[in-house]
């Protein structure tokens, strides 16, 4: 039962599309809320998605995001095409950032995105290739505490 997919959806995100930044994660939040997941579980998924979406908008050319929810888990995937990350370990350190002033003006680019995604996830996996792109998958366990 626990592997039954309750919901699956694919989203596309365009790099540098600052005016729509956040729309995918807001939609993910409404979907998860609608399904009936616990409020704090939804919040963790929404925060991690928003950080990942901002990373795509700020650094990548385009990306596909995939949301799949089962009764016991929420899995979210961001696969982008773009510059990639040269040193993933460094990018996972709090405070490391390659943000431009434009990104900082929007309140982002403090080097906390990836660390915060990992912090909110129960499972976290990232792989990246320079000039190709980054593939991020994170899962949040919902422990059957939902509809």
């Amino acid at each position, binding site marked *: 039962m626990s592997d039954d997919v309750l919901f699956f959806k694919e989203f596309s995100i365009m790099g540098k599309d600052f*005016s729509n*930044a*956040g729309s995918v*994660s*807001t939609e993910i*939040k409404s979907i998860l809320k609608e399904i009936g997941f616990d*409020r*704090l579980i939804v*919040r963790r998924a*929404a*925060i991690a998605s*928003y*950080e990942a979406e901002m990373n795509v908008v700020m650094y990548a050319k385009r990306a596909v995001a995939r949301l799949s929810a089962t009764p016991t888990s929420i899995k979210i995937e961001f696969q982008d095409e773009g510059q990639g990350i040269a040193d993933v370990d460094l990018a996972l350190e*709090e405070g490391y950032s390659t943000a431009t002033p434009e990104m900082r*003006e*929007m*309140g*982002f*680019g*403090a*080097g*906390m*995105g990836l*660390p*915060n995604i*990992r*912090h909110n996830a129960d499972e976290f996996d990232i792989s990246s290739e320079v000039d190709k792109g980054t593939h991020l998958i994170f899962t949040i366990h919902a422990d059957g505490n939902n509809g």
Partner: protein
Amino acid sequence: MTLEEISRVIECEVITGEKNLDQDFTEVCAADLMSDVLAFVAPGGLLLTGLRNIQSVITSHVAEVRAIVYVRGKVPDEEAIKLAEQKGIPLLSSRLSMFEASGRLFQKGLRPGSNIKPL
């Protein structure tokens, strides 16, 4: 303290959410950096910020911040106001600085709504 009382204490004008001023708050956080809000803020609080773009509203919605006060008389842009109306997040504008607004609210018994342990 209700949002209406908060509004009086830190000299606010209500931009949107007039009907939701009876909400009660015990916790506040003050930040211009939305990354800080996403990483360290507890759900359910009030945000004081100087960032007037739409990201302030999206961040608050995502992190379950229930209301936003823009400091130093700042007014958020149109699309931020529109989204806040949709999501039911009241927006206020205080003429005080971030420091003074925070100080007055602390004096009245409101407390930090954040967990500042490193990630």
